[in-house]
Each structure stands twice: as C-alpha cells, then as structure tokens.
C-alpha cells in the first residue's frame, strides 16, 4: 500500500535533489566565470605594469632617462590625463545626452540632421588638427585662456561628442514603439514616458557611447601636452624627441594601460546601470 504512495514522493524528492545539484553546479560555474570576468582584466593590467617596471629596472638608464621616468612625474602626468578624460567626458554627457533627447522628440526631430552634422564635423576633423585649430582660436581671442586644461577639454569634447550623441539617439529610437504606445495609452505623460521608459531602456546604448567616448578621450588626451594640458603624452613625446626608447615605451604602455582600465571600469558601470529585465 505504501508503495503506491511513495513513488511520486520519492520521485519528487529525487527531482528536487537533482535540480538543487544542477543549480549548485551552475552556480559554481557561473561564479568561476564571474571571477574571470571581473578579475581578469585588472590582473592582466597589473602584470603588464609589473613587466614594464622590471624591464625599465633592467635597463641601464642614462641621466636624461632617469630624470624623465620618475614615479612622481609619471603619477602626476597620469593624474592630469585622467582629469582631462573625465572632465571632457562629463561635459560631453551633459551636452550630448540632452541634445540627443531633443533631436528625437516629435516636435524637435527636424533639428536632428543639423545636430548630427555638428557631431560629425567634430569627429571628421583629425584630432590633432582640431586641437591645433582650437589652440589657434583661443590664442587669437584674448578673452579666452589659451593654454592649460580649458582648450584641451573643449577639443576633447568636440571630438567625442558624436558617439554619445549618436548612441543617445539610437538608444531612444530603438525602444519598441508599442511599449511607448502602451505607456501613452495608460495615461503616462510624455515626460513620464521619457523618464520611466525611454531613458531606462536607452541606458545600455547610451553607456556604450560613453565607453567609446572615454576610450577616445584617453587616446586624444595624449596630445594635450602640446597645448600645455599635460598628460602622459609628454613622456611619449620626450622619448620620441630625445630618441630614448625606454621613455617612449614607458609612456605608450601607460597610456594603453589607462585606456584599457577606463574601458574596463566603464564596462562595469554599464553592467551595473543596465536595467535588470533587459
């Protein structure tokens, strides 16, 4: 009699146990994948830095090299580099996202081509040329500071404007129109639809643009020193000018490491801010 009763129960227990085991196995695998995902890049970058350090240590440095590659100089240049990158990216965000929203609203959509044209112009001009142009412009306008951070940030902003603008527009426009219709149909105001539906759904695409802009800016900021903006470009250029390969390589590797690190961190933020259901 009990045998007619037990099988389903036993089966159920077996099924649950198995499911639990599978969950656990999946969990273990997922955890391992996550560890690789999160720690892989930082460990790699640390290894690169360590290799660079050991390599430089192994070289016979002459006095010029020894003077150029000091920890203090490199750190201060890195700080300048990061500051330039962050400033310009924040400014681009503050400009390009609202403009992207503006260019996709029904009433103001007709301005979209003009706005995109602006972004295109900023990016189409080679970055060095753009910076030189701005430098010249700032020099001839006595009211504006001609050296230091300011002109460089303006140049970086112009150069990285397009990715964030374009991604904001694409991100907003790829939102399913029936999702918007449902929101509207339930009586959400246009502002609320934008805030609660369109922007959250556009976040991943906008952030991808931000990531691109950040990496672009790390690269372009290497030119900043030409206009008195400092940054790691100085070390690279010194190495070049003085024909000191150790210096050149050190500067170049540091910029590359910085770009990868920024990309990695931006990726983490992107992941964190992407709405869960997507």
């Amino acid at each position: 009699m009990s045998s007619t009763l037990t099988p389903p129960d036993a089966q159920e227990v077996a099924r649950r146990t198995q499911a639990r085991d599978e969950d656990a196995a999946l969990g273990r695998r997922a955890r391992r994948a996550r560890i690789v995902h999160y720690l892989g890049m930082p460990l790699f970058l640390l290894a690169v830095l360590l290799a660079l350090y050991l390599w430089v240590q192994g070289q016979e440095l002459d006095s010029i090299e020894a003077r150029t590659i000091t920890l203090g100089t490199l750190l201060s240049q890195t700080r300048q580099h990061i500051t330039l990158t962050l400033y310009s990216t924040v400014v681009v965000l503050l400009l390009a996202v609202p403009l992207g929203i503006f260019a996709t609203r029904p009433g103001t959509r007709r301005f979209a081509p003009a706005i995109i044209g602006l972004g295109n112009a900023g990016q189409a001009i080679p970055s060095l040329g753009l910076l030189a142009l701005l430098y010249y412009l700032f020099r001839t306008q006595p009211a504006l500071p001609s050296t230091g951070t300011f002109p460089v940030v303006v140049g970086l902003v112009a150069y990285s404007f397009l990715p964030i603008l374009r991604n904001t527009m694409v991100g907003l426009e790829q939102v399913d129109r029936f999702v918007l219709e449902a929101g509207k149909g339930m009586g959400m105001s246009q502002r609320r639809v934008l805030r609660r539906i369109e922007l959250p759904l556009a976040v991943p695409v906008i952030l991808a643009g931000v990531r691109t802009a950040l990496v672009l800016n790390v690269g372009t900021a290497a030119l900043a020193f030409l206009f008195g903006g400092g940054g790691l470009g100085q070390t690279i250029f010194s190495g070049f000018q003085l024909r000191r390969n150790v210096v050149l390589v050190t500067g170049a590797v540091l910029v590359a490491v910085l770009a990868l690190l920024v990309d990695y961190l931006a990726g983490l933020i992107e992941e964190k801010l992407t709405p869960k259901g997507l």
Partner: protein
Amino acid sequence: MSDVTNSDTTSHLGEAAEPGETMIELQELTKRFPGQEAPAVDRLSLKIPKGEIVVFVGPSGCGKTTSLKMINRIIEPSSGHIIIDNEDVTTIDPNQLRRRIGYVIQQIGLFPHMRIGDNVATVPNLLGWDKERTRERVDELLDVVGLDPRTYRERFPRELSGGQRQRVGVARALAADPPVLLMDEPFGAIDPITRNRLQNEFLRLQGELQKTIAFVTHDIDEAIKMGDRIAILQEGAKLAQFATPEEILTNPANEFVQDFVGTGATLKRLKLTRVREVELTDDALTGREDEDRETLRRRLAESDWTAMLLLDREERPIRWLRTPDLRQQQRPLTEAGLPARAIVEPQATLSDALEEMLLGSAGVAIVTDGRGRFQGLLDVDDIILAIQTMRDTEAEFYRAAKLSDPDDEVSA
C-alpha cells in the same frame, strides 16, 4: 406573458436585443491622415451599450485600429465626437481620459525593464494609490488572470511565455478597474490553442466584470465568439452591419457581410450556443472509485446503461466502465475500462464540444464544472438536435448556405 415569450424567441433568432444604457458613443468620427486622399475612418457613428463587448471586424486596412485608437485619442480624430458615459471627451486632457480606459494591444507592450508587478501597477501608480492598496490590487489581478502572484510578481516580462505576457497585458489594463476597455487584436499573436483558452477565460472574466469593451479583430470567428454585438467595417470604417452575431449570421445585411462571414454559417452558429444552454443528460450512471466493485457491477446491471462513469473522490470523471471491466479483478478500478475523454465546461460552445468528441473518438462529451466535478453528459444527438432547431427556424438561410457551399452538406 406571450409578449415575453415572443421577445425571447426573437432574441434567440438573432434580432438585436434592445440595447441598454449607452457607454461609448462615436459621432461622425473621422480621421484623415496627412497626405492621404481618402479618410481612414469616414464619419463613423456607433453606440456601445454598457457592459457589452462590441467587436470591430473587417478586412485589413479598413480602419479598425484607427477607429479604436481614436476612442482613447492615441490617434486624434480629425472631426467628430467621442462621448463616454455621457461626457464629451473629444477635447479633455488625453492623459486623464486614458487612465479611465484600459488598453490592450496585440504587441502587449509590457515594459521590459520593470517587473510584472510594477507593470501591472502602472495606472495605480499614475493615480497615486498608496503602496499597500496597489500591492493588494496587483496580487488580486494576477490571480484573476490565472498567474500565481508569488511566482510571477517579481519576474521580468522576458521570463514569461507569450500567453502569460498577454495575461499580464490584460491584468495591467484592468488595474485601476476602468469601466471601459479597448482591445486591439489582443489574442492575435498567440497559438490557436492558447488563444482559445485565453478567449474562454476572458469571457468568463467579463461575465463577472461587465466592462464595456471595444474589441478589434480581423477574424470573423473570433468576432462571433467574443462579441455581444459585431460591427462589420468596410474600407474607410464604413459600417456594413452592426448587429448581434446571430443576426449577422442569419441575416447578413449585404453581399459584403455575406462574403466576409463566409461559408459554413451553420457550423459557426454552433459556436454561439454554449453547452450550458442545452439540456444535459444528468441522470447518467456514475460510480465512485471508493465504492465496492460488486456494488458498481450490480448497479450497472440493473440500469439501462451499457457503461458507467467512474468518478474520483472529488467527483471528477476518470474512467468509463462496462460490465466486463467490473468483473475482472486484477486491475485497479482507476485503470480499468476506457479513460474519460471529451471533457468540456459549461461555457464551452457546442462547436468546442463537438470538436472534443471528434478528437476523443467519443460519442458523448462529459460536462464538468469549473472544479472538474461531473455535471452531466452531452450526446452527439443533442448537438444534432441543436443544429436541427436552427435549421427549422432558418430553413431558408440554411438552404442558401448549403447551395453556396457543397462542403456544408457533409458537415451538417
């Protein structure tokens, strides 16, 4: 008294029942899209009675969706008026208007970044309900549409099947208990079996809720099934006929309607009659699984029946048993004889029942209530009788249908 009988008969025959209080009225509603010569909707006038489902049906591009979307002004009318509950809403704040109207579309449009619970809570949140009330309402509604709140409330839309999403869409539309619902092909993108189930569930729900519903479909069968009244629309949302399904099947107003309804009108009418409307054989011989084999056998032998229906402890039908099945002792009763097949609920249509019988190769359908408890039997003869009745009352129409489609002869 004879009056009452009379009106009863006519309503059965398909004369439009006297409409009650009007909930939605469209007056000369017109929409011209910029750059198009002919209006998409041309002076549509229509009254939707309170508590009824009015189905807009017609060929693709005839203006059904446009007409529907003008009611909540997702599309602003070019001219004409919309009156809801005696209030002209043509120029009021559209957002206020839409919070009073439930809206369900084929594409559903759930917010993918919000959990199911938050999706359903959309309108309550807009109306500023407090958290507790919203939460209770969300759980209640998920329950109503057949989704366990504990399982589904915290999920995201992508973690649901198409049918489940559509249920959430309906729950979301009902959240603030709006008196009016607009539904644009709500079951259009779902497989036929799920669609049928959702239709039935929705009809049962509507039986309780009594909402006023404008429902768009391009499927005449769905229109017949769902509609208290059907508006058949032609190009430009011209009203070809506005009547009850019976009336439309019996008396198509013109050739367009006749073509649109298509052939097989008699079979379609089987979809209009529900199992609960015909008399069931309720003196069927039943036994319970906990009864003694011998008692059952004697009962069967003493009756006129050749088989008895075995019910489980909850009175749910499980097996058909004949005398030899009851004699032999080896097998447990629950495995003897034949499985009970072709089980239908009272709100199923005769067409559903017939289909179940054909699928189950059974000459009889077993009718059970919502909990699966046995209620009675429906014989294939009962269905033929029902067809016969239709035929007698509409002999002429039937002949016309028969002439126009030789296939019908086989099925009739």
